[in-house]
């Protein structure tokens, strides 16, 4: 009998099944809530940040998706809108701001410079793509992108959060979110 008890391929009991279902249900409800109130940290370093202003203004209304520009502090934000070239000196500040944000946190890379380095891909003083230093969930192409594309990116991010497909570095290894 002891051998059967220690067998790792044994089927879960009814209690375990109920626990797993409940845990998943709670996580789903939490994710539904998270996806509908994304407070962004506007990390604007260059010209793409100019397109971020009409994104929050009347015509392309960011507020109706729950993306409220409140405070602009990493402590209250759960989405970082990184727009503009990141120089090598700025990379540490960006990572510093990213690490101050409470988990779960999401990243949107705005513009060509953040995706691949763009115009400055060959420079000695710029980071060729911020996915070299942090995980990125949604990329917005363009130089600079239109404000409507920000709205599209937020809608895509909402979909990703609901389907649990958020990228995250855990213990230094890039992995899909398990929780």
């Amino acid at each position, binding site marked *: 009998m002891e051998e059967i008890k220690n067998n790792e391929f044994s089927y879960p009991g009814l209690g375990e099944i109920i626990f797993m279902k409940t845990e998943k249900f709670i996580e789903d409800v939490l994710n539904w809530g998270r996806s509908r109130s994304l407070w962004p940290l506007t990390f604007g370093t260059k010209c793409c940040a100019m397109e971020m202003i009409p994104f929050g203004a009347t015509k392309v209304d960011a507020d109706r998706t729950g993306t409220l520009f409140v405070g602009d502090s990493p402590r209250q934000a759960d989405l970082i809108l990184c727009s503009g070239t990141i120089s*090598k*000196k700025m990379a540490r500040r960006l*990572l510093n701001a990213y690490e101050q944000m409470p988990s779960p946190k999401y990243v949107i890379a705005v513009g060509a410079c953040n995706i691949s380095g763009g115009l400055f891909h060959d420079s000695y003083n710029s980071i060729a793509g911020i996915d070299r230093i942090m995980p990125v969930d949604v990329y917005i192409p363009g130089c600079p992108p239109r404000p409507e594309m920000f709205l599209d990116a937020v809608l895509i991010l909402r979909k990703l959060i609901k389907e649990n497909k958020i990228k995250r570095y855990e213990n230094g290894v890039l992995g899909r979110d398990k929780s």
Partner: protein
Amino acid sequence: MEFLDEIKAKFPNVLESVDGSNENESVLLLKDKTKIKRVCKEVKNHFDILFMLMAVDKPPKIFELNYVFSSYKTQNILTIRVNIERDKAVIDSISSLFESADWEERETYDLFGVEFIGHKNLKRILLPEDWPGRPLRKDFEVTDEVRNWTGLDLKF
């Protein structure tokens, strides 16, 4: 110009007019780099600010430093040009005479590696402190090592 003659009279055989310079934008070549501080002290009687400090890399031997001064009253511009050796790029700082020289000298130190003796806070101004190399020198090459340098201890 009057001020040119006055400055030149104080330092005979050391200062020399460069051909092709305008009336309002004159260029003086300084032959002895150890006298830069004394010359600038004299220049301060006629000019208010140092508004630019350029370094030009002329391999294989020379760095050419251009101190550009300007006057609010007369709107004259004076450039003092000094050639220093590329291997031993050392010159006296004039940040005690002109306040704006502080950041200009730090920038030249950052991008060219010219050392200014007597500067109070000589460290990099644009690039990170631990960045390798001097990027505006002609012999600097942008290799993959430089491109991928982040200065961060990331393990992925």
